[in-house]
């Protein structure tokens, strides 16, 4: 139990008043900037990097831990309350969370998100404390074929967000796939569908599409069919807290979300998108209330939120134990380490135990701090919905615009915002589902790169795609998932 003693020492570092202040500051900054659509933890921490000149490493990393969790939490708040996910990781949260907010259960949605994040963060930090070296090894275990199978598995989540018509659902998906190929091909350098527009060379920015489809499309749609007073009263109806039933329906999704998010966060090509999509799908399949999905099912918030947070913690595993950055946020943290002349990896645990264990301890503290900060704030956040509709929607547009403009400072992104916003409007009018576009846009390019890498390494032999046990298992699960309902129906019909 050497880890345990070192962890206690870490707590004695992290609990010093100065360091607590840094954790608090980080959480506040993270939450503040996290509510801007499109601005995530990586950018926030990068912006704060200059801080590392004037502050001791332990304090700086404690603050960054706060920023990390704060930004994630800020993102889920806007997803739930104003249907504007700021990052791809909180997209699935918006699907059910916003529906809950609209039926007067915003507080419960925010609470299950906060507690779910806390539970996931705590379990993930525990795993980081006691099992990090083992978990880090999965970064080396995953081959392109495994990634490809995992992405195919995540693709099946399309099936549950299809909406009323298969044709329209698939059109949405293929629009996303088409958007995803735009830009210079990373494997060969060939320009695809850029039509000579340099602004499209680096592809279409995911967060711009995300914010435009959700927020801008919604603003245009509601403006065109606005019925004053229709929704003003529902926002604060109902309880301000989770009911016993809510707890009962949330705790399993929290745990399952954590189990999905943590290991996938530790993968070099993992990230938060795949686990949140898988978690949503899984909860929808497992729930006894699957008919509520699409109308505000609490499991659909609890699971993905836990997965999102656990993935954020998972990313720290390969970073701290191997010095391997697996995400943009991790790379920024690595840069922060290097600014202090520290190289994360197995040697850092022995050379700088105070720093590492102080950081790990502060992850626990950051978690508690966010919970303590946010649960009382839930009531205040929900009151946002009391703002009269004209000014509320106007404010949403302003924030969406600031997020998109601040991300790149390019007018082309504002043009994309309008274009995609109009598409979002048309999709609402003609009842095309929104989520498949994003699933196609996020997973399409990932699948393509892994497929091409796997095939190239195997000289084009497709057997490589099922050559590892993991890839075979995941593809079988994906196939079962898609075919089982059809087979079951047929059996029922025969019976």
């Amino acid at each position, binding site marked *: 139990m050497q880890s345990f003693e070192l962890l206690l020492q870490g707590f004695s570092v992290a609990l010093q008043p100065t360091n607590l202040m840094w954790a608090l500051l980080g959480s506040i900054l993270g939450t503040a900037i996290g509510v801007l659509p499109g601005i995530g933890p990586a950018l926030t921490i990068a912006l704060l990097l200059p801080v590392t000149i004037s502050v001791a490493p332990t304090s700086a990393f404690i603050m960054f831990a706060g920023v990390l969790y704060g930004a994630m939490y800020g993102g889920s708040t806007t997803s739930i309350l104003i249907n504007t996910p700021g990052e791809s990781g909180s997209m699935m949260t918006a699907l059910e969370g916003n529906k809950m907010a609209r039926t007067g259960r915003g507080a419960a949605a925010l609470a299950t998100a906060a507690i779910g994040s806390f539970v996931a963060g705590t379990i993930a930090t525990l795993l980081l404390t006691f099992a990090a070296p083992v978990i880090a090894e999965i970064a080396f275990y995953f081959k*392109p074929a495994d990634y490809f199978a995992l992405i195919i598995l995540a693709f099946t989540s399309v099936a549950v967000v299809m909406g009323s018509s298969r044709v329209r659902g698939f059109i949405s998906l293929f629009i996303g796939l088409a958007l995803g190929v735009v830009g210079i091909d990373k494997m060969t350098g060939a320009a695809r569908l850029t039509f000579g527009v*340099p*602004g499209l060379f680096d592809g279409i920015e995911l967060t711009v599409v995300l914010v435009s489809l959700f927020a801008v499309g919604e603003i245009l749609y509601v403006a065109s069919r606005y019925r004053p007073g229709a929704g003003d009263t529902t926002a604060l109806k109902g309880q301000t807290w989770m009911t016993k039933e809510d707890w009962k329906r949330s705790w399993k999704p929290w745990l399952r979300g954590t189990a999905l998010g943590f290991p996938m966060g530790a993968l070099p090509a993992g990230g938060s998108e795949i686990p949140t999509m898988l978690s949503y799908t899984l909860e929808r399949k497992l729930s006894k209330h699957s008919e509520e999905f699409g109308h505000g099912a609490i499991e659909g918030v609890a699971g993905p939120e836990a997965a999102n947070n656990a993935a954020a913690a998972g990313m720290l595993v390969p970073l701290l134990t191997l010095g391997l950055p697996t995400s943009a946020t991790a790379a920024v943290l690595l840069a922060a380490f*290097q600014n202090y002349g520290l190289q994360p990896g197995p040697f850092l645990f022995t050379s700088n135990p105070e720093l590492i264990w102080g950081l790990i301890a502060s992850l626990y503290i950051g978690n508690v701090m966010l919970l303590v900060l946010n649960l009382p704030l839930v009531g205040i956040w929900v009151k946002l919905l009391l703002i009269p509709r004209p000014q509320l929607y106007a404010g949403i547009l302003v924030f969406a615009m600031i997020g998109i403009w601040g991300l790149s400072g390019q007018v082309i992104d504002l043009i994309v915002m309008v274009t995609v916003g109009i598409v979002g409007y048309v999709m609402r009018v003609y009842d095309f589902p929104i989520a498949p576009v994003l699933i196609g846009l996020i997973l399409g390019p990932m699948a393509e790169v892994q497929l091409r890498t796997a095939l190239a390494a195997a000289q084009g032999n497709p057997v490589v795609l099922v050559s590892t046990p993991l890839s075979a298992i995941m593809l079988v699960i994906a196939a079962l998932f898609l075919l089982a309902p059809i087979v079951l129906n047929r059996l029922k019909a025969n019976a």
Partner: protein
Amino acid sequence: MNFKKALLPLAMFAALATGAAQAQVSVMLPANPGGGWDGTGRQAMQAMIDAGIYSGGVNFTNTGGAGGTIGLAEFKNSQSGKADALAIFGAITVGAIDMNKSPISLADFRPVARLTTEYDVIAVKADSPYQTLAEFVAALKADPGGTAVGGGSAGGVDQIALALLAQAGDVPVNDLNYIPQASGAETVTGIINGTLVAGFSGVSEFAQFAEQGRIRILGVTAPERLAGIDAPTFKEAGYDVEVGNWRGVLGSPNMPDDNYAVWVENFKKLNESEQWHKVLETQGWAQNYLGGAEFGQFIADETVRIGAVLKDVGLVD
């Protein structure tokens, strides 16, 4: 506990919230996080701040892919004429522009400084049967398709190094199975899990994994052996190949002359500073400074030289 010290975070927050006016330079890092350019840019700016040469804020943007042409295209798009906008780039970019028929030209940008030259290393998995470079080249010759090699983006220094090695070892260059990876992290994991038989990358990205005993470095592309790396140069191993992966800084197209002069001077000072020397040492980068107009001439020469190499090895027609 010092009370004043405890209030420092609060004071910082106040300063941030009131938007204390601070100069801000945006630095384009046209590679995915975790790679060599990413480190070069971040460390150089930090050293510059530490040395007191520059005191404003730095806003980094990572836009990876296609040898930096994606990032530089975006840089050109968004920062043309901006006073405080820099981009990191390097030898890889020169080849990538040719390969991708990119509409950007390095002559579009203002040459600020070349900072370092990092040499490439080739590594295999720790339990790989190949103990020496010669054994690897023999395998490459016997079965080029089955010997998948990973590294940075298509047409970059990694691929050029492989092509030159192949040429020197009488392996048909057109048969090579080179698989570009999104980042150094993915090259390392690819080697270790067996997807890639070997991988090329800069010393700084591979050194610690060699130290951890996960990969074995077979050779370095430097003119002389590198400190701390237990591997011969390509020349020693019998392959007359020397490729340097130089890295430098560009200013935005049409950067105002005054700002340009300031940045050229800033990097000159950086090159002489103690702080930068310390970074070079910890990162294992070789100092190789060239500033302003001279650097511009170097870029022009290098464009011709690398273009010719790419043609020789059949990457560009």
